[in-house]
């Protein structure tokens, strides 16, 4: 198995899990899903400069074989942005839970405590 196949399937699995979780009804799962998707995106961006093993991203006269440094810079920016976004989503869903009394993404209150317990079990 090539390195490309491994990375590509890792991205695919992360995205699949992420999409599943984002479509769930509770904010906590949605936040987890967003995190998974952002991991996948970061991996994807990282791989976009082609997968190169044992090569520095820096220019030096003795080095002939380089890794593309730009995707790494892009990933760094993307990580920072997604980190901030995730923190914001967590706070937002927490506030929404405290104000609306439910962690449902639609903000609809749960039918009854029993139904809620059943849904969580």
């Amino acid at each position: 198995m090539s390195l490309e196949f491994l990375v590509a399937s890792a991205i695919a699995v992360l995205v699949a899990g992420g999409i599943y979780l984002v479509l769930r009804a509770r904010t906590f799962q949605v936040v987890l899903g967003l995190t998974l998707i952002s991991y996948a995106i970061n991996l994807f961006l990282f791989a976009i400069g082609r997968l190169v093993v044992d090569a520095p991203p820096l220019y030096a006269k003795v080095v002939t074989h380089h890794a593309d440094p730009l995707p790494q810079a892009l990933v760094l920016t993307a990580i920072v942005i997604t980190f901030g976004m995730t923190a914001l989503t967590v706070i937002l869903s927490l506030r929404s839970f405290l104000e609306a009394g439910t962690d449902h993404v639609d903000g609809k209150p749960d039918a009854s405590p029993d139904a809620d317990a059943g849904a969580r079990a």
Partner: protein
Amino acid sequence: MTAIDHLLIAPIVVPAVTAPVTMLVMRRRRHFSLCLSLAGCVAMLAAAFALFALAQDDRIRAYAIGGWVAPYGIVLVLDRLAAIMLVLTAVLALVVLVHAILTGADRKGWHFHPLFHFQLLGLNGAFLTGDLFNLFVFFEVLLIASYGLMLHGQGALRLKAGVAYVVVNIVGSALFLVALGLLYGLTATLNMADLAVRVAALGPADQGLLRVAGLLLTTVFALKAAVVPLHLWLPRTYGATMPAVAALFAIMTKVGVYAMIRTVPLIFGAHAGAAAWVPAPYLLASAILGAAVGFVGVLTARGLREQAAFAVLASTGTLLIAVSGWREAMLAAGLYYLVQAVLAGALLFLVADTVMRRRGQYGDALASSPRFADQDGAGLLYLSAAIAAVGLPPLAAFVGKLLILDASFGVPGWSAIWTTILATTFVGVIGFLRSGSTLFWKSASDADPIACPPRARTDFFAPALLLALLAALTAGAGWMTAQTHAAAAQVMAPSRYVTAVLGGSR
């Protein structure tokens, strides 16, 4: 480089400085901070006008940040389209800020002014940047600020809508990154001008991926622009937001359309091989649907803010109808429509605010209530705003729609375009008639009296100002269309953009 050259970065630097300063001063000296915030907006307006005047010589200017030349560094690019958008943003921002201060909307939380200026920073940056990744960053800046502004004032309803809004936009940003990654993987550049050159030189094996990248990129912009079927987040978000903030948001959907106008002819234009005009076939269909969904929403809305949100959707749809042909004349008509649509959308939200502030517990619900204070004045404003939004004479939307109809005559699918625009206008008229007569003509005298403190009439100032601007746009339609024609000509000639950014070396 002279000072004039550095002016290009002023629309980004001014709000970037104003935002933290207003935040620092706000707690101790509120009035001084308000003055600073207003001064920042006025300075931005001045810079925007200066750049607009600069762009009149029909030259496209590139500004290499830090002196790093394109395609290695990030460039800002000023052409006529960017200049028009900058002026529009600055004018809208000033009007909305004045309204927010007059109505006390900025006092519902601590950080209205910093967030407002960060929002402007993101908007201006998105209009000026010549680099796709930088465009992503500025989109994030304006989105992060908009999350804060959207939640300004808080309340359970706003928080619920806020969660959905944030999640949708984060997923959109993830898609944006995928599209960027694909483009970078194919061309090893993210500078838009350089992309335009390299896309033309791609081999046949890469054409499929290029199409995917083009469609993904357009999908992301369509999500930001709330194009049907990616519009579901918009009515709920804008309907739950404070009207003064929603008025500023009227330009946010148009940023998505702007990004399409900027990238599609440049990167996915006629030179792009299999990916030439790749989003075009899908855009017209969704634009027609968008205009229909928007105006039907105007008819069925249950509240004034929701109605205004659907009017924004409808205007985006109508605008995209003009854009999706990717012809110079249609684009010129569309740009004229864009400018007035932003002002008209903001006007609707501000009028909703003046009504809401006087109806106490009835809020903005489209149900009859006892007579409220200044009902006649508010009714007159609402009538004008409805005319401005739906496209009846004499206001600018009528001219805009007329221009779109005229420009699209004879192009493929023009009968669908004509039918849509004429029929949706009719539906919109009925929608506004229904809500206007419910609000202002029927009064339920036996219902509970309105519990609402008397309001000063200062909140009529900003809507009246917007109305005057719309009237001026109508009166100056000849001059304005000359401007948009010149802007469309620049956009549809990507080689000029490429030469301006990369110099004559390529």
